[in-house]
């Protein structure tokens, strides 16, 4: 990548380029090149090392690899390439479908991960199970606590010790292909479940994940997303079992069938909603008025990390505001880091998918640790799947 465009570009031009990029008429590389976001990366690409005084990990040899356990569609592969270029360490990405699965792997031992991406409500459990280590913040210079919105960084601190630093936050709503609704805008979870039983029969997907699937079924009745109350769960179960014959699939890997038209609607996380909406404008991301989940993901280091230094280096790299901005552009999940947001185009910061209206946000709940480990909810999901 050349340095010919190192002049800052005008806001107007930036937005034009972003639109073009979103429509897919230019490549990401072109977009990054023109807007200068790529330059930041290129600069870091060892061309002018002096510009990166805080690159604490550059001095040490961190080995040739780092293993990251994360979620699907959650990174910009170009950033990993850049990281490899800079440090010599390849990034191996293992992708998971649920926090439970991550926890299970880590609990079983020998996961081999250096960095993983737990969600807010899991961190106390990891700490309780002695699976993650307190972060050595001196190795993560790019983490500046004050830059982060505490709503989305609090959960990383347990009993005053920082165990995890924030990655992204987001919401869990659903995405619906409006071509099939006859132009009708959906706004609630009630509609989600009702339309599944009727017009959308055989076209709806729910997550293979008890937290969101049960939580959003609870929302049909207006119960708390986190409810572990047996009576409320019984209502949710009744709904789920009633809906099951009408589902296309129970699967957290929902982008492919939505894209090829087999599925018309699915529970969906912010970034996936953004990605789908960018490529197919008929895909509408909806947050149920009744509420639902708001969450934040973190970076953490397992106690068993085999390449700890490389793990820290990767976290530090990914928290670099310039890198992080590139990540956001790739995956479409908002960040809680004000420094990164400064680098992002205004349009993105005002995007209704990333930043829903306040009254919608107010209705959302963070998942609770008790919800994650509740055996009754796990059993409920098993009954639902086997029904």
């Amino acid at each position, binding site marked *: 990548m050349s340095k010919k465009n190192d002049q800052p570009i005008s806001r107007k031009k930036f937005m034009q380029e972003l639109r073009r990029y979103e429509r897919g008429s230019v490549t990401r590389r072109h977009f990054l090149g023109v807007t200068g976001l790529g330059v930041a990366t290129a600069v870091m690409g060892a061309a002018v090392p002096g510009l990166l005084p805080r690159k604490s990990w550059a001095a040490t040899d961190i080995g040739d690899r780092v*293993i990251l356990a994360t979620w*699907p*569609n959650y990174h910009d592969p170009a950033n990993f390439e850049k990281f490899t270029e800079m440090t010599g360490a*390849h990034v*191996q*990405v*293992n*992708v*998971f*479908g649920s926090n439970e699965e991550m926890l299970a792997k880590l609990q*079983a*031992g*020998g*996961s*081999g991960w250096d960095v993983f991406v737990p969600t807010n409500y899991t961190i106390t459990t990891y700490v309780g199970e002695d699976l993650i280590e307190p972060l050595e913040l001196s190795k993560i210079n790019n983490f500046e606590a004050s830059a982060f919105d505490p709503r989305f960084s609090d959960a990383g601190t347990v009993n005053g010790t920082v165990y995890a630093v924030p990655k992204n936050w987001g919401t869990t709503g659903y995405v619906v292909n409006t071509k099939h609704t006859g132009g009708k805008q959906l706004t609630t979870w009630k509609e989600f479940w009702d339309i599944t039983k009727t017009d959308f029969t055989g076209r709806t997907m729910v997550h293979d994940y008890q937290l969101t699937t049960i939580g959003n079924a609870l929302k049909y009745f207006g119960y708390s997303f986190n409810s572990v109350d047996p009576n409320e769960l019984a209502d949710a179960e009744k709904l789920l079992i009633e809906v099951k014959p009408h589902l296309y699939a129970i699967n957290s*890997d929902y*982008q*492919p069938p939505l*894209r*090829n038209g087999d599925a018309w609607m699915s529970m969906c996380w912010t970034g996936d909603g953004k990605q789908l909406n960018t490529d197919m404008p008929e895909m509408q991301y909806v947050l149920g008025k009744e509420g639902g989940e708001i969450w934040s993901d973190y970076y953490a280091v397992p106690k068993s990390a*085999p390449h700890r230094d490389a793990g820290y280096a990767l976290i530090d790299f990914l928290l670099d505001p310039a890198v992080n901005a590139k990540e956001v552009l790739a995956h479409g999940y908002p960040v809680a880091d004000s420094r990164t947001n400064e680098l992002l185009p205004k349009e993105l910061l005002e995007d209704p998918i990333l930043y829903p209206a306040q009254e919608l946000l107010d209705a959302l709940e963070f998942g609770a640790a008790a919800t994650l480990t509740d055996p009754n909810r796990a059993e409920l999901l098993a009954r639902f799947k086997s029904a």
Partner: protein
Amino acid sequence: MRIYTLAVYLFLYIPIGIIVLFSFNAGRHASDFHGFSIKWYGTVLANPFAMEALATSLIVASTTAVLASIFGTMAALALQKVKGRIRAIYDAAIYIAIMIPGIVIGIATLIALVTAFKFLNPVLENFWPGFLGDAPHLNMGYASVIASHTMFTMALVIVIVRARISGMDRALIEASADLYATPWRTFWQVTLPQIFPAILAGFLLSFTFSFDDFIIAFFVAGTETTLPLYVFSSIRRGVTPEINAIGTMVLTVSLTLLITAQFLLRGRGSQSSTQ
């Protein structure tokens, strides 16, 4: 009959055809075709993790196949002479090993090894003689995958080889002994050539099983990523033609090996009949 056979082969090969076709897809998504390109092959070859997963799978599968064939053949030969209750115990263990679903093997091995390591690692750390350096930290990895693949495939080899041994004419062994061959030479010159097809079949089955196994490796692999695990993880990130390119390359390599082997075997056959 012919048409039926053709239909079955089509059924077997259409998915393969699709894999190959989409590996040349210029587009990023596997589901729609955007023109011809070989760029995904470049992507795979330049992807150290894909290559490493392939290498891991090859190492795991060939080690498994070698161990299973050798140990399985040894056991099959020895079990011929074992009678009574001990034989019944072995038979039961072998059949159980074959019958237990991979998923149970995976889970059982995982929890057993995790439990055993939890117990053994502190013991090793405390009692490891200092002059040998740091105590080894037992963990899931190559060894655990190979060990569990070998357990299953070895049982398979035992059954296959034993069937061949029992189908073999005992008189051939006696004929060899009668013609002055010591038991050791009889083994190499008569028994082994006779059971060799079974061993080879066992070897190939073991290799194929191990190379293709996802479920056991899913539980016991630890840090090592085998090709199926890599594919599984990649698919979750969205199916790209990269996966199809991997599939196509693996297929091409197997086919090449196969054709070469066939060619070599045929060559040897014709050589011996014209000498």
